[in-house]
């Protein structure tokens, strides 16, 4: 047991049941999983990525590279969870990962023995190169490598928890609730600004929470926190990480609302994704400790010195009795003194030859042994630390004397501190090197909307941290116009020298030859050793970006939080260049790993996008129609009779329309009101055909091109009045057409007095088609629908059961047909009235599948033909193009490449046999090889009840000259070859006798 009998920021009355790999870990409220593990003496928590080396708890925070576990089980199992930031809760179940059978006896550790063959670039060198067909071989090997190397395994079950996205606006966002952030929030809050203060930890305090309970810093924290909590304009979000800074002063926060509970409370979300808009941000994100690099520095029992301080004071856990504190700076000295105070045996091993006299005096007084000018060359032991080999070192960290072995069970290391500048860097690029303190910081720029403060700006003392935080908070508030008096900054709780003042540059402890003794790790999570960096450099990878990708350094889930600076430092040494010149990589969001669910929020399944329903939708559902998606719309696909499948139903429906009458809901068509004195001129420019002669009461089919000359859309437009036109578009292109028209009217054609308005949702549309269409509609409406009164391409106002409607006479099916436009609110009623009047006329509803069959029989083009690569000529629509006027695309459609006579053009295909073709199948000549892309392709296909055979439309090279020729239709995906005869695509009633009858 390593838990101290008293102390810590834990509630010893609240006992929690926590298990790791089935082992009970007694924990208290306030513990993390890592502190509970250390308290119970769990050394090995995980196995490393590449070599399966045992790894223990290395840190006490978000930077943790080794102590990662599977958390929870079943559909809530989460991989790669850092034990150091996982709050203990009652019922917590964690298991080891990347190991078999478990983390203590891992078969995969054999790769540690093979490690000389697994150095930087190993995968690439071995599997890409000398072998014939090496890509295939590599892909085979990769499968096994991915299994052996690796991380935790995710759950394949769907996530049972809910997540939400919220938006927040504020004047000042303060990231980090340590001394600097608290001071900044206090100043901005007193100034009257709208402040949001976020802290990723469970409570405010930052490094103060790692100080002794009840000390001067605690009193400071209590007072400042109380004042902040009393300010109504300050919103405090704990358990919340600012993961990203984006353009437009936007920040992303992840609030872990329920992760500290076994399951979220009823109706509560697991996490909230906050999108914050803050014109001013104070980045008080602190600093992360750099490790020292020496042989065996990855073993369980080696941890960061700052983390040891946290476990001691916050969790009352001391995971060792014989402790070595190895350092190159002053920061661990107080911890050494505190440890000696609770009776531990402590030796400070300092790489520096000299330290301040008062520090030495205080160590001696506390009974701490001190070895100056010495370093830990190697840690020995396998799953626990047994001893440290310590040798005197020169100013480059090289041993220059015989090592001595001293027993130890815990080695705490400090190689200095690295400011956390991620948020700033995400937006503004590379931080700059400051030799004062050997750190990368954001360059000083008073106009920058993200202002670092405190340790993230390498402040030199606690007084400096507080003063700087307060000043930046005040300035941020002033920048947003909040200038109430802020009074004085809270008085500092500590004076004197601070961590970075006496930092020495050496951090790697090497033998006299300049090599480490044994495996010395730089990136603990991705198993990148000091020797891998040396090797990468030797092979010419001298850019930090190349080094990163070649060695995979900094590319694990911890994103190199403990490794980046050491690696850069090594590269600088190898290149004999200053750090400033070698530079650093940039940081990208997110700062820490984010659950996919939080990114997704509610936008999944049915909520991924809105579903559009027609005004008649519920009738279709009541009639048990099978529905299909058409963009965002749900449309009736077919109305099956008992036992019918799709094929039987659509053939029956299509045949029924040709012999009797059918009705179909076409409310999804795009509908646009085009109004104004220049509407006819506008239509003339938009459509390829002419509009100036269209009389009121008539309608006309039209085709539109894109600016580049390809066909964009088609549809009918009716002239309702002098300056009032009603345009219809295809369902798919409604939004595109409207936007394009608005664009032209608001930019190039501002002189045209025209307004366009989407009225798609205002009108239901019902198509009634078939020989009995006229008699049916005459029964239900007051309109004269006789051939003379309403010829094809005319419309009339009418009333159906008291509802004002408009009846357009036009045909898509090729039958005598009408479209009834009904105000949306009466859509289903009018549909019902027509349907009720149906029996004497033998009326049936039909769906989109039979509508498609009818239009293919008729040879009308639709989406599969108007697919963005086809011209008027390709589709046999050139006859519509007016030569008397320019229109959108009229010049570019004549480009030579689009006029090439060999371009595939639209043809009909009569398929032999009893099998239909698949759209996308390729067309080949009757004989010869079927290689390459063929001579064309099938676009639309159906069984034709009118012709009693399978037919298709397709685009075929030289199609106009190939009438009657046989071609092969080859479906390489389905491995099917059919034979078809090339015919006109106007399969059925080409003269239009039926629709004009």
């Amino acid at each position, binding site marked *: 047991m390593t838990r101290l009998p008293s102390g810590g920021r834990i509630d010893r009355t609240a006992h929690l049941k926590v298990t790791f790999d089935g082992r009970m870990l007694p924990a208290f409220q306030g513990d993390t999983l890592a502190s509970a593990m250390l308290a119970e003496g769990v050394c090995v928590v995980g196995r490393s990525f590449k070599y399966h080396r045992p790894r223990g708890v290395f840190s006490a925070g978000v930077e943790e590279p080794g102590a990662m576990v599977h958390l929870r089980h079943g559909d809530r199992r989460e991989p790669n969870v850092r034990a150091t930031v996982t709050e203990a809760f009652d019922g917590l179940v964690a298991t080891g990962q990347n190991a078999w059978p478990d983390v203590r006896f891992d078969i995969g550790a054999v790769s540690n023995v093979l490690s000389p063959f697994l150095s930087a670039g190993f995968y690439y060198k071995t599997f890409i190169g000398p072998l014939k067909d090496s890509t295939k071989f590599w892909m085979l090997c990769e499968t096994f490598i991915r299994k052996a190397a690796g991380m935790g395994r995710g759950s394949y079950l769907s996530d049972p928890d809910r997540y939400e996205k919220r938006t927040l606006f504020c004047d000042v966002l303060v990231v980090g609730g340590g001394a600097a952030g608290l001071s900044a929030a206090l100043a901005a809050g007193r100034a009257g600004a709208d402040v949001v203060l976020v802290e990723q930890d469970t409570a405010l305090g930052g490094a103060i929470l790692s100080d002794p309970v009840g000390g001067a810093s605690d009193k400071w924290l209590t007072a400042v926190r109380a004042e902040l909590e009393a300010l109504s304009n300050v919103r405090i979000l704990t358990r919340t990480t600012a993961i990203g800074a984006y353009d437009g002063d936007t920040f992303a926060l992840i609030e872990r609302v329920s992760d500290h509970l076994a399951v979220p409370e009823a109706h509560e979300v697991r996490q909230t994704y906050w*999108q914050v808009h803050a014109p001013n941000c104070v980045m008080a994100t602190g600093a992360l400790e750099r490790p020292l690099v020496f042989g065996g520095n990855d073993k369980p029992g080696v941890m960061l010195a700052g983390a040891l301080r946290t476990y001691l004071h916050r969790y009352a856990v001391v995971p060792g009795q014989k402790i070595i504190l190895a350092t190159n700076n002053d920061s661990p000295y107080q911890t050494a003194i505190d440890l000696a105070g609770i009776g531990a045996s402590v030796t400070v091993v300092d790489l520096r030859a000299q330290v301040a006299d008062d520090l030495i005096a205080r160590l001696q007084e506390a009974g701490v042994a001190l070895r100056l000018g010495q370093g830990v060359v190697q840690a020995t032991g396998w799953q626990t630390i047994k001893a440290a080999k310590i040798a005197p070192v020169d100013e480059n960290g090289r041993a220059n004397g015989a090592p001595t072995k001293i027993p130890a069970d815990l080695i705490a290391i400090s190689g200095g501190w690295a400011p956390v500048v991620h948020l700033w860097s995400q937006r503004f690029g590379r931080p700059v090197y400051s030799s004062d303190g050997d750190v990368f910081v954001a360059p000083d720029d008073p106009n920058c909307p993200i202002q670092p403060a405190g340790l993230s700006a390498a402040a030199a003392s606690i007084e400096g941290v507080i003063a700087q935080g307060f000043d930046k908070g005040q300035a941020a508030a002033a920048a947003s116009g909040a200038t109430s008096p802020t009074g004085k900054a809270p008085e500092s709780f500590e004076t004197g020298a601070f961590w970075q003042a006496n930092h020495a540059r050496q951090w790697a402890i090497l033998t006299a030859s300049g090599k480490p003794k044994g495996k010395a790790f730089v990136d603990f999570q991705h198993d990148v050793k000091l020797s891998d960096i040396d090797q990468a450099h030797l092979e010419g990878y001298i850019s930090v970006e190349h080094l990163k990708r070649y060695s995979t350094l900094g590319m694990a889930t911890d994103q190199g939080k403990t490794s980046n600076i050491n690696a850069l430092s090594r590269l600088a040494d190898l290149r004999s260049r200053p750090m400033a010149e070698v530079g650093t990589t940039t940081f990208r969001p997110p700062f820490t790993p984010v659950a996919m669910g939080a990114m997704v929020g509610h936008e999944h399944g049915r909520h991924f996008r809105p579903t559009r329903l027609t005004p008649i939708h519920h009738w279709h559902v009541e009639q048990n129609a099978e529905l299909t998606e058409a963009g965002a719309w749900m449309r009736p696909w077919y109305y099956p009779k008992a036992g019918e499948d799709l094929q039987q139903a659509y053939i029956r429906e299509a045949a029924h329309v040709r012999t009797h009458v059918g009705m179909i809901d076409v409310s999804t068509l795009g509908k646009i009101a085009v109004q104004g004195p220049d509407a006819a001129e506008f239509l003339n420019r938009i459509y390829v055909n002419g509009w100036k002669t269209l009389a009121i009461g008539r309608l006309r089919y039209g085709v539109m091109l894109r600016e580049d000359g390809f066909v964009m859309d088609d549809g009918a437009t009716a002239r309702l009045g002098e300056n009032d036109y009603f345009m219809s578009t295809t369902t798919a292109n409604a939004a595109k057409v409207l*936007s394009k028209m608005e664009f032209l009217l608001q930019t190039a054609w501002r002189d045209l007095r025209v307004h366009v308005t989407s009225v798609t949702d205002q009108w239901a549309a019902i198509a009634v088609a078939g020989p009995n269409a006229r008699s049916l509609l005459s029964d239900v409406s007051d309109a004269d629908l006789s051939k003379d009164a309403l010829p094809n391409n005319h419309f009339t106002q009418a009333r159906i059961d008291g509802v004002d409607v408009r009846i357009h006479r036009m045909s898509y099916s090729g039958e005598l047909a009408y479209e009834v436009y009904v105000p949306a609110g009466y859509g289903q009623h009018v549909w019902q009235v027509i349907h009720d009047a149906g029996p004497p006329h033998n009326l049936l509803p039909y769906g989109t599948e039979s509508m498609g069959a009818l239009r293919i029989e008729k040879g009308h083009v639709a989406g599969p033909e108007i697919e963005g690569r086809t011209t008027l000529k390709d589709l046999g629509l050139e006859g519509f193009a007016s030569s008397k006027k320019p229109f959108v695309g009229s010049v570019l459609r004549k480009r030579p490449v689009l006029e090439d006579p060999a371009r595939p053009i639209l043809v009909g295909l009569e398929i032999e046999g009893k099998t239909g073709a698949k759209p996308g199948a390729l067309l080949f000549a009757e004989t010869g090889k079927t290689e390459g892309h063929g001579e064309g392709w099938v676009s639309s296909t159906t069984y034709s009840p009118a012709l009693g055979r399978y037919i298709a439309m397709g685009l075929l090279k030289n199609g106009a000259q190939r009438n009657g020729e046989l071609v092969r239709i080859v479906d390489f995906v389905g491995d099917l070859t059919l034979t078809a005869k090339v015919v006109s695509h106007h399969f059925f009633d080409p003269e239009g006798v039926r629709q004009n009858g």
Partner: protein
Amino acid sequence: MIRIECPILGPRPETEFVYGGDATVKRPDMSERDPDAWLDYVFHRDNPRGIHKEYWQHIQARHWLVVERDTLTHEVIQASLAREYQS
């Protein structure tokens, strides 16, 4: 997240807009018959580093804007109604 200061709606997030391409190109007059003029308009684009003019449309309110944006920093300098914009 780019935020666009719309002259009608005030500052709005980019998710409320759709991008509509380069606003520095001028559509030829309808009477223009030279294919080169149309090829320039449809296909040829500069890729400037720095301040650029772009069309954006507000999805709900339907108006098109000419947005001056710095392609290096994503800073939106100004947004004007396209129908009032004097190039």
